[in-house]
């Protein structure tokens, strides 16, 4: 996006000169890689779903069970990504601004959800939050149920999305000079004003990127969710599970239909986020 913003105003050129040579080879590799690994499989998916036609796709999307699952998936992913932005920012701030015992260790732990097989995460979370689990049991005394409800899905998605926000915001926080805060304080700004008007605006694009990444990961998440969700139709069933359900009935077209719909929604949401990001970058500039 930044390249896009930067290229505006200049004369449009296919390849700007760069200190690193080999544009042809690297560009060829980029196209080859993108086509083979991303575009080709995705176009096969869409080709398969095209058997349904647009009317058929609409029929799949509005089928009550699919619609309920899509709502569950996208709304909870959105909420989880929003939570991740708040707590990811806090975690990133602590990890880059403070020097304390065990900081490097904590910093390494942030990446664990990246590496852990998601099924392992799901099974562990379900064990923790189940009615007889360490967290679930005390909560059950207050009649709060997490595992096997929608809240369980939220917990799993917050877990898998957090590192995306932390890792995108962290380099930016490291770049912001502490002098900026000091200047703001000497000019008489309150702490809240400093946070809202000095610190957050330059971080907005990075936060949005983190949000988009966490959201994208959550929408596609399967392994960690199915173990903790309960998988009750219309209540706690996620869209990726419906794809598996359809495959289990050998309904390839239906499965690719749901997948295509998810792809379309995800793409529009990511595009929207990117546009907001470009706008905010223009508005607040880059640090």
């Amino acid at each position, binding site marked *: 996006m930044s390249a896009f913003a930067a290229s505006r105003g200049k004369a449009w050129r296919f390849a700007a000169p760069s200190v690193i040579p080999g544009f042809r080879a690297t560009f060829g590799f980029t196209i080859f890689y993108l086509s083979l690994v991303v575009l080709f499989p995705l176009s096969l998916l869409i080709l398969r779903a095209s058997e349904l036609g647009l009317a058929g796709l609409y029929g799949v999307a509005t089928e009550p069970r699919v619609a309920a699952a899509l709502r569950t998936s996208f709304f909870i992913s959105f909420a989880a990504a929003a939570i991740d932005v708040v707590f990811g920012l806090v975690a990133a701030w602590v990890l880059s601004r403070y020097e304390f015992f065990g900081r490097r260790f904590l910093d390494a732990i942030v990446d664990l959800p990246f590496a852990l097989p998601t099924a392992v995460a799901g099974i562990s979370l379900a064990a923790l939050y189940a009615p007889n689990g360490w967290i679930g049991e005390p909560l059950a005394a207050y009649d709060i149920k997490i595992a096997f409800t929608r809240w369980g899905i939220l917990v799993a998605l917050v877990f898998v999305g957090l590192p995306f926000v932390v890792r995108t915001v962290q380099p930016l926080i490291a770049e912001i000079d502490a002098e900026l805060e000091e200047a703001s304080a000497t000019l008489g700004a309150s702490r809240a004003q400093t946070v809202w008007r000095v610190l957050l605006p330059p971080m907005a694009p990075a936060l949005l990127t983190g949000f988009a990444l966490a959201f994208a990961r959550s929408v596609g998440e399967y392994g960690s969710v199915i173990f903790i969700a*309960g998988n*009750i*139709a*219309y209540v706690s069933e996620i869209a990726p*599970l419906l794809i598996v359900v359809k*495959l*289990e009935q*050998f309904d390839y077209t239906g499965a690719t239909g749901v997948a295509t719909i998810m792809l379309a929604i995800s793409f529009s949401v990511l595009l929207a986020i990117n546009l907001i990001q470009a706008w905010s970058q223009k508005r607040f500039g880059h640090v």
Partner: protein
Amino acid sequence: MPCATSSRRRLGKALALLVGASILVAASAEAGTALLNASYDPTRELYKAINPAFIADWKARTGEAIEIQSSHGGSGAQGRAVIDGLRADVATLALAADIDAIVKKSGKIAPDWRARLPNNASPYTSTIVFLVRKGNPKKIADWGDLARPGIAVVTPNPKTSGGARWNYLAAWGYGLKTFAGDEARTKALVGAIYRNAPVLDTGARGATITFARRGLGDVLITWENEAFLAALEFGKDKFEIVTPPASILAEPPVAVIDANVDAKGTRKAAEAYVNFLYTPAAQAIIAKHYYRPAHPEFAEEADLERLPKLDLFTIDEVFGGWAEAQKTHFADGGVFDQMQKQDAAVRP
């Protein structure tokens, strides 16, 4: 540029090596007689015991060494793998519907597969029973008890699990028997049982873990052999098996995958393998693993005594076969979908 040439040569060498190695691997997989058995999850332990017995038997009869690999997973997923090109020689799945799907979607198995082997191509059968907590605190004895308010039932999702479809059909068959064929009352009963389910796991093993390890629910509906395994694994002092007076005769079928064995030249061995399942040696192993052998006379008395007698109805009698049951109950918009839709309205 000498450096570039040497690196290019090195790359070429590496590529040649890679290609050579993959040809070698492919050739060795094709050359020796090796059979691949695509099976479903709960048979892991069973085929681990049967395979060495067949290898010894084949060696004694033909003098040839043979290798058997088993691949396990969800029954539907295994069927899909075969359709998509898994070069398995035999399929030993949980449902006839999954083998029928291979027939229909890929034509890799001849349509008459069920008639090619004795007992509807099922060398062993099983049934659906209940696993309850020790002492049976909720006094569960029959299918009707599962529909009582306040009973938490654990069962996998019939949309994703082959075993779960047997569970569902067992309850349905019981309903039809009890209410003298009254469909509406049967639907109400089965609907009440599924309303009592707080979670629908995607597979039979997952449901077992939810019940036995997570401690969720009062009763687990499951395969008879899985119930025995769970009781063994998680402690006999914690669980009890309750066998209802009536349940379904679950017939997991086996078939040789014609297109694959003809391509690989393994037909003789593959046919010997599935036929071996009906021999006295294999039948005894089958009974040892808590399945009901097609020929009980070959099994040990003690193994058979563990499996209680009950009234078993078949899917053909009650539902008119798998294809019919699948279409009516589990297809999109089928009876199960309708029940879940109604459930959603009353769930908290």
